[in-house]
């Protein structure tokens, strides 16, 4: 059952930052910094993270648009980088992409039949029954009227364009679809239609999805397994239920609690006279707990730049947990506020967070590994075992 169709091993993607007259590479944007993943056949792996976390770069590397800096991508056990050019092209048919913005992902000057038929033209394939019939079938498969094939993208709504994009991705009968935020540009009432379509197609064609999204609700709905990325690394990974209900990494917990839920009893802000203290003076843990109705752990600041990620654990500069740990208080204050960010004040975090990159490892032996043979629950945090926080729920 647990048959991996896609394996990523230690994948690294750095973009050099060139400077000066000689265009020497002075530093690098560490977009993806050592990621390992496994996607099983017929399953969906959700990849969540904020902008700059490297999730979209990872998607682009997987579909072959960007070459990796190092690391391996294995499709059906075959290492993509070891293949010849022709072999890569063949393999590329197995991994296709669905894009975020249905308004820019279709060439406005090509008709729908040209767009959906282009994969055949590129690979010189003449499908049985002719290209025309094949395009009609694909359109029908994604719920579009084949008679509309001669129309142009601007004549369709956003949801319909996204269906055209999915039809194009399916033309070469891929095994894996990499979906990069496939519904985030769509209206709420249309999002569900596309999600249902993707689920139907998975059941019908046995596809595997790598589903990249920032909307945790959508990922929870569609994914079997979830990986959380922060600054180019995976910080937590496991079966959907384990990550959402038993998040162990402080970042995952903050992310989950910051997601606005459509339930007015869970307020992002306190109502009426009972106002929360200004976030800066409130202890994120107790403060949030004390007001009761306010569920969010509000992280301070923005994610750091991937050009110059923090040493040690990449999350330690924003971590809400680290300063509250007893280790942070007993150790000498080694943390000086960075010169450009004196606002951070004297954040004292355990030394180990600043010096050692935490490895992705199972932290709580009590929980059983993924029920259906999925990935076991792993966390990249030095203090993950300390976290038992029933308050965080989505």
């Amino acid at each position, binding site marked *: 059952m647990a048959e991996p169709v896609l394996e990523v091993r230690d994948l690294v993607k750095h973009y050099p930052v060139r400077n000066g007259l000689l265009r020497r590479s002075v530093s690098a944007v560490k977009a993806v910094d050592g990621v390992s993943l496994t996607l099983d056949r017929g399953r969906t792996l959700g990849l969540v993270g*904020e*902008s700059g976390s490297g999730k979209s770069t990872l998607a682009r590397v997987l579909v072959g648009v960007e070459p990796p800096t190092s690391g391996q991508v294995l499709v059906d056990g075959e290492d993509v980088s070891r293949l010849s050019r022709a072999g890569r092209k063949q393999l590329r048919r197995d991994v296709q992409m669905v894009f975020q913005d249905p308004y820019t992902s279709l060439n406005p000057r090509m008709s729908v039949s040209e767009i959906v038929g282009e994969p055949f033209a590129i690979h010189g394939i003449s499908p049985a029954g002719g290209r025309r019939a094949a395009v009609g079938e694909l359109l029908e498969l994604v719920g579009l009227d084949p008679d509309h094939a001669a129309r142009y993208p601007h004549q369709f*709504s956003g*949801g319909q364009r996204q269906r055209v994009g999915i039809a194009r991705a399916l033309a070469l009968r891929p095994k894996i679809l990499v979906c990069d935020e496939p519904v985030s540009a769509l*209206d*709420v*009432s*249309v*999002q*569900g*239609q596309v*999600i*249902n379509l993707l*689920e139907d197609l998975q059941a019908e064609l046995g596809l595997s999805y790598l589903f990249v999204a*920032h*909307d*945790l*609700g*959508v990922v*929870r*709905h*569609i994914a079997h397994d979830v990986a959380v990325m922060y600054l180019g690394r995976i910080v937590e990974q496991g079966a959907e239920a384990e990550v*959402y209900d038993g998040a162990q990494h402080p970042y995952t917990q*903050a*992310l989950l609690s*910051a*997601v*606005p*839920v*459509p*339930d*007015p*009893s*869970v*307020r*992002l*802000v*306190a*109502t009426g006279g009972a*106002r*929360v203290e*200004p*976030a*800066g003076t409130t202890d994120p843990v107790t403060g949030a707990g004390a007001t009761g109705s306010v569920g*969010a752990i*509000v*992280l*301070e*600041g*923005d*994610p750091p730049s991937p050009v110059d990620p923090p040493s040690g654990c990449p999350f330690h500069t924003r971590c809400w947990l680290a300063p509250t740990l007893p280790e942070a208080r007993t150790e000498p204050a080694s943390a000086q506020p960075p010169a450009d*960010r*004196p*606002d*951070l004040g004297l954040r004292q975090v355990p030394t180990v967070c600043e010096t050692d990159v935490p490895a992705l490892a199972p932290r709580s032996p009590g929980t059983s590994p993924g029920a259906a043979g999925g990935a076991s629950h792993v966390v990249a945090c030095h203090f993950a075992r300390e976290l038992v926080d029933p308050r965080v729920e*989505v």
Partner: protein
Amino acid sequence: MSRTQSAAEEKTVHKDESSAPPPLLEVTDLSVEFRTSAGQVRAVDGLSYRVEAGRTLAIVGESGSGKSVSSLAVLGLLPDTATVTAGTARLDGVDLLALSRKEHRARCGDQVAMVFQDALAALNPVHTVGYQLTEALRARRGMSRADARKRAVELLDLVKVPNAKARVKEYPHEFSGGMRQRVMIASALSLDPAVLIADEPTTALDVTVQAQVLRLLAEIQAERQMGLVLITHDLGVVAGVADDVTVMYAGRAVEQAPVVPVYTAPAHPYTRALLRSIPSASGTGRLPVIPGRPPSPAAMPSGCPFHPRCDAVRGVCRTEVPPHAVPAEGRMSACHFADDILAGRDPAPDGSGNDRGDSGGDHG
């Protein structure tokens, strides 16, 4: 005809609440039309809402529902192809829409200000943040340069931009997305407006940053007892911060109510369907979705604009525009069968339910 009827009903609703403090901003029966190649197209149709001091009104809708256009109209920022064809927007007893363009502009910023979704586009890249923050102060209040700079630092402090003293001298591109949105908020606050209209202020932001900005907005609002209009498509955000909700569909308000009952007992089929279609913790299986998509304003369906997508559609919905029913105290639903939807039952089959919509108000 149905329009005058709905306006009359709107008035009665307000009469019931006459004990409440007068609203800061009251929009009544607002209609906006666009001139397009397909003729005049109505983008907003008979919208009414009120914003009270210290309360947050969320206007929820999908793209094309008219939620942004309606606030642009209030602020006098409509593009040249659009005109306000009916309605009033009373601010402090003065109808903004009856003012000349110049007077209208003068009142905006002073008493109503707006925060836009795309903070990078709304800030001028060639001026420092401090300069832009106080542009209005210098132009309108004749503030001196030194005072303006001091005020700019105060404003950035107010929106919790760290190290404000140094950062007023920086340019917009040196700020992150979340910080830029704070600058936008500070700029909107520079003239101490009574009402702040925020159009998708956090849509472009990451969730952790979104939480920061929403919390900041709420704090400032509470401190100044400001009225806040939050325009958004995100029902999660609405549940998290709003006090009152107006749901818009195809240019009309289809449901208006305090936030909690909208979620617990929606009175309009559109609201109900929208809430059901949110992917949530309940997990797997097919999502219940709303079939089809919102109508184009150029080709509005007859009768109730939602009827082609409605799961409780009856014969009357196809021919009659629903009145603004009052299925319960303080609530409005533009549905012929508002009472049934609110009670969670199916409307009676065709033939017996035609006069349902008029019986509103007997729940309270």
